[in-house]
């Protein structure tokens, strides 16, 4: 979801002459900027989340399709709101959420999966990452570290609270984090823009940041990135690659979400002036796209391209090695649904994207313009299988090849 930004009706709010009289209030947060008058009565709104358990027989696994030779199965369920995933050294899969405020730990118990809630009552603990056996959890306003987590899943105890050291921004909007450790041992996270499209401090928002694991040494890794909910490092070149969500209310087909290749730390990727090779007319005066780094690939309009990982295993055919799996959670700000799948970005030896191919499909019912589930993240396990989290059904699918 939610590139939720835009409140329906906000354009109207901001346009109200009556608002001008409120000189005492701070400037409006610009949530609804960028929506043309012609869309003011659009019924499009973020889809309702599901925060109750979906029984295993209700999970739409039978609708899922993968390429020939692959197999997809239900790996875990009963984890409402399951989003970002990280694997511990002993194989525990940690799962972050947003609205329901929980972190789950999923373990294999003799062919069955056990789902534990190891943290709760957090404000959108979307970000999870594991380093040296310690689990890092990042909510909008908190950074927590659970040391030696896999040895105490039944009683995690009180985590170390690193909140103060990281000094996160309190903005709720696009304030939930994707979290990952880089090959340099630093902790990376996004800081999204607190609006749909607006003027903002470009050194404070629309960033990918990195920190020392203790929260010191903040560094800007990428600028002009509206909101990235997934990134990973090329296994050979170690370049950082990231997905990025395009803005809402610019039309059914504009702009597209993007895949970014970040060759040099601090590069500017263009938001809010330019997205997906499209100069946003909302920004006046504008800046042409030629001033910014072009995306490596376009990922479709409003698809909500989120979690992405390079395939580093050996269990899939050679053609998938070092290619990028990308989960597309699916659109709300588009009349005909888009996304709701997992695609593969195919890269050549030079790291150029040669195509975006479907991989996991079946969750978008095109004929009826309905969706059955919402893939948010992908995770390559040590055994080479690929996990896909489905937030809407609180489920995790497992994709294997051959056998």
């Amino acid at each position, binding site marked *: *979801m*939610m590139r*939720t*930004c*835009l*409140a*329906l*009706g*906000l354009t*109207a*709010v901001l346009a*109200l002459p*009556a*608002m001008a009289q*409120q000189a005492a*209030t701070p400037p*409006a*947060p610009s*949530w*609804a900027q960028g929506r043309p008058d012609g869309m*003011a*009565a*659009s*019924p499009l*709104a*973020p*889809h*309702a*989340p*599901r*925060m*109750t*358990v*979906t*029984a295993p027989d*209700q999970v*739409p696994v039978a609708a899922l399709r993968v390429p020939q030779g692959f197999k997809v199965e239900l790996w875990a369920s009963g984890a*409402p709101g399951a989003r970002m995933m990280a694997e511990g050294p002993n194989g525990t899969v940690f799962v972050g959420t947003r*609205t*329901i*405020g*929980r972190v789950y730990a999923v373990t294999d118990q003799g062919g069955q999966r056990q789902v534990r809630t190891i943290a*709760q*009552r957090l*404000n959108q603990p979307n970000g999870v990452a594991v380093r040296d056996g310690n689990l890092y959890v990042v909510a909008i306003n908190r950074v927590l570290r659970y040391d030696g987590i896999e040895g105490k899943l039944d009683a995690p105890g009180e985590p170390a609270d690193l909140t103060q050291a990281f000094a996160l921004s309190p903005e*709720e*909007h696009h304030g939930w984090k994707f979290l990952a450790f880089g090959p340099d041992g630093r902790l990376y996270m996004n800081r999204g823009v607190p609006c749909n499209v607006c003027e903002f401090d470009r050194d404070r928002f629309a960033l990918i940041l990195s920190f020392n694991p203790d929260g010191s040494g903040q560094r800007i890794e990428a600028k002009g990135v509206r909101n990235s909910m997934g990134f990973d490092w090329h296994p050979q070149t170690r370049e950082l690659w990231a997905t990025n969500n395009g803005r809402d209310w610019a039309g059914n087909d504009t702009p597209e979400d993007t895949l970014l290749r970040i060759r040099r730390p601090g590069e500017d990727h263009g938001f809010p002036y330019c997205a997906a090779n499209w100069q946003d007319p909302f920004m006046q005066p504008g800046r042409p796209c030629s001033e910014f780094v072009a995306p490596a690939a376009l990922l479709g309009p409003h698809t909500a391209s989120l979690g992405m990982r390079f395939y580093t295993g050996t269990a899939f055919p050679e053609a998938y090695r070092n290619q990028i799996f990308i989960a597309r959670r699916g659109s*709300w700000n588009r009349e005909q*649904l888009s996304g709701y799948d997992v695609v593969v970005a195919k890269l050549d030896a030079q790291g150029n994207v040669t195509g975006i191919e479907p991989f996991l499909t079946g969750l978008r019912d095109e004929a*009826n*313009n*309905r*969706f*059955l*589930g919402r893939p948010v993240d992908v995770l390559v396990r040590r055994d080479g299988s690929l996990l896909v989290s489905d937030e*809407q*059904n609180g489920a995790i699918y497992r994709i294997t090849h051959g056998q």
Partner: protein
Amino acid sequence: MRPGFLLLAAALLAAAFPFGPARAAGDAARGRALAEEHSCGGCHGPQGVSGQPNIPSLAGQPADFITLQMILFREVLRDAPPMPDLAQGLSDQQIEDLAAHYAALPSGPAEDRGPRDAGRFHDGALLAERLRCGICHLPDYRGRMQIPRLAGQREEYLAGAMAQYRDGRRHGSDTNMNAVMYGVTDAEIAALAHYMAQQ
């Protein structure tokens, strides 16, 4: 209600809002028993129409909305005493059953609803139009999915809820209401609440 009408209504709703996945509904009969067991009606009214200030009516609310709010209470993510305490220990199924029960009850205004004030009603109508409340809450404000029914709700409850959204003290499953209410004055909230309560 006749089954035929329900089917037609469901079909119309599906046609209007085709996006969401089908889901297993709660059981209204089990929900009614649970509501009696927990004395929900003591505050929310025996038929889900509240006669108590600042306690919302639940009758006719969309089931998804009730489920969402109950989960937020149970997870202690929404602060509205005593609901977080009362929601502890409820299973997902029990919450969905309660939601099905209240969603099936006929909505209506509280017995103590005051008379309509033509001036405030008119102001509220204009504001509702400008804020486009009817896009998400539907033109008759009966709500849909996670978006609550406003029509006939208690006036002072609506005013309190809108102020909470404006002041960042309440959140839904997204931040839309916080954004919609940004900068809306207390007087404007009072007019909106009156207009919605008088539907």
